């Protein structure tokens, strides 16, 4: 029983991180219909911002979060403004191929500059755990989970309560009408991509505090973000939370009771079945073409 609870809690904590880095993917797809293949590279860049600030300037990893937030916002804004906006009206296939090209450029430039070394951010408090009746909860993961929730809730509030958020939603629902109402659609796209990249960069910073990071880590993260977003419903932001938690728990339980390698196979089988049986996601609010 204790093993089960431990595995469940590990899964939930993992799921929170999944949710944090998948919410941006869902946002970008929901607003622009762009399937962003270089999403994992945004995680990687956020993680490296934290790594370099920690290694070179000795800044606590949690204090680097504002820097990765701002730098990734600017990066995302510029990429959308100058590159993706040029094809955003084209068929969706074009956007995947374009973002795949950007994936290659970022991932291999990073590999070239930073080499394939595995790196970690080890602080004085890494490895401290809370022990509640034999259930181990690492503090770094707990803090990450809390911040991940804040990111998702913050994004939700931004979308539903602010003017920019309303403009983003209007654009997502009907871009022609939004344009007639005076929304600068291409500008909104750039801001949306910026926000998506910023929260993904923050998730990357959080990940750097307890996972190994390396320049080619991106693609698996993109693939997991696909799974999470399909489980939760494409384009439906709170769905990222559901999808993340379900996937985290499923992976943790398969790793505990079957075999850790199989957890990958299980995720993909789950994804495959989900797409066929219920493409709108667990809560059924995703966009279905």
């Amino acid at each position: 029983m204790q093993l089960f609870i431990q595995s469940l809690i590990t899964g939930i904590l993992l799921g929170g991180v999944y949710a944090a880095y998948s919410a941006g993917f869902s946002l970008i797809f929901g607003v622009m219909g762009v399937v962003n293949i270089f999403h994992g590279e945004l995680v990687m860049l956020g993680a490296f911002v934290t790594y370099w600030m920690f290694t070179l300037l000795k800044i606590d990893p949690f204090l680097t979060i504002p820097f990765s937030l701002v730098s990734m916002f600017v990066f995302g804004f510029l990429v959308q403004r100058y590159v993706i906006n040029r094809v955003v009206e084209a068929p969706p296939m074009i956007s995947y191929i374009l973002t795949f090209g950007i994936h290659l450029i970022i991932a291999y430039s990073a590999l070239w500059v930073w080499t394939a070394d595995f790196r970690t951010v080890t602080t004085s408090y890494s490895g401290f755990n809370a022990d509640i009746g034999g259930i181990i909860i690492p503090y770094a993961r707990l803090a990450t989970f809390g911040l991940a929730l804040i990111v998702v809730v913050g994004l939700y509030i931004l979308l539903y309560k602010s003017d920019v958020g309303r403009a983003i939603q209007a654009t997502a629902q009907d871009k022609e009408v939004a344009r007639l109402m005076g929304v600068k659609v291409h500008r909104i796209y750039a801001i949306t991509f910026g926000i998506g990249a910023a929260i993904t960069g923050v998730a990357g910073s959080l990940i750097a505090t307890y996972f190994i990071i390396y320049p080619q880590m991106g693609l698996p993260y993109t693939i997991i973000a696909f799974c999470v977003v399909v489980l939760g419903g494409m384009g439906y932001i709170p769905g990222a939370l559901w999808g993340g938690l379900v996937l985290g728990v499923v992976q943790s339980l398969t790793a505990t009771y079957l075999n850790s390698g199989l957890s990958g196979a299980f995720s993909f089988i789950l994804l495959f079945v989900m797409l066929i049986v219920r493409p709108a996601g667990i809560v059924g609010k995703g966009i279905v073409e």
Partner: protein
Amino acid sequence: MNRKLAALIAAAVVLVLLIVPNLGLTGYMVRLLAIIFLWIGKTGCWNMVAGYTGYIDFGAVGYFGIGSYVTALLMAKAQVPFLVSILIGGIVSGLIAIPIGLPTLRLKGAYFGIATLAFAEAMKQIILEFDKTAGVNFFDGPHGITLPMGPGNLFFYYLGLVVMLAVVGITYWIERSKFGYGLRAIREAEHAAELSGVDTLKAKIGAYVLSAFFLGVIGGIEAYWLTYITPHMVFDVLITIQMVVMALLGGIGTLFGPVVGAAFLTIIYEVLHRDFQYTYAIIVGFIVVVVVILMPKGIVGTLNTKLGKHRVKQAQ
């Protein structure tokens, strides 16, 4: 260009390719050409589905890997002759494509892409973990399978040539046949195609199975050429991605697009990869971005449009 002339040129090219290895072509060139033929084959397979039906398959490497594994298992564990093994590899791939295609080909756009990607990744993970989970010694998980030593590069040159001609030939047939018109109608407006009497699911499955069969055969050929395969090698998502990029660069949904794209990129790879390991990927990334923005129809597609305009002017 009239039809007779085109047929003549095609026959001449094939003849030259048949003779050329015997005219003192270096071993390196034979190997490079064989690699190009096999990439044209793979990209052509991807193009049959994606180019003509508009369903972007991100899991094409799944069928390549299945073909590789079937061939490797048959040859290494049952001593089945090579040609029989690759044929069975192709058939198994094609058969697996039916239950995978039936549900996924109902999905639209990005959903189809993600589902097929999930299929290919799941296949890799299952082969990686099967032995450990079931407690047997069958796929040998991450350790991979060693095949019997094969013949030299010349054998693979001719085999690659045959497969390439088969894939290009079938694409030519798709371009001209009623089946192909059905596929293109699906790409342009699936619902309208269905209303005009195209059995859309049957047509899509047909193209998908055909493509899976050839990918399986090519997977078998490459496994034998490499003599050693692991799930990470033959289910590598980068293989799918390479097919996508080659087709895009040459021109998706055109007969010669995959030929031009695959040849061009393979040569760039050969030139750059030895000296600049990472710059190859970076340069390919830039090529993709530039092509998508400036000529989304690819090299052949853009040329066709230009020549087409010319023809209209002449007619006037």
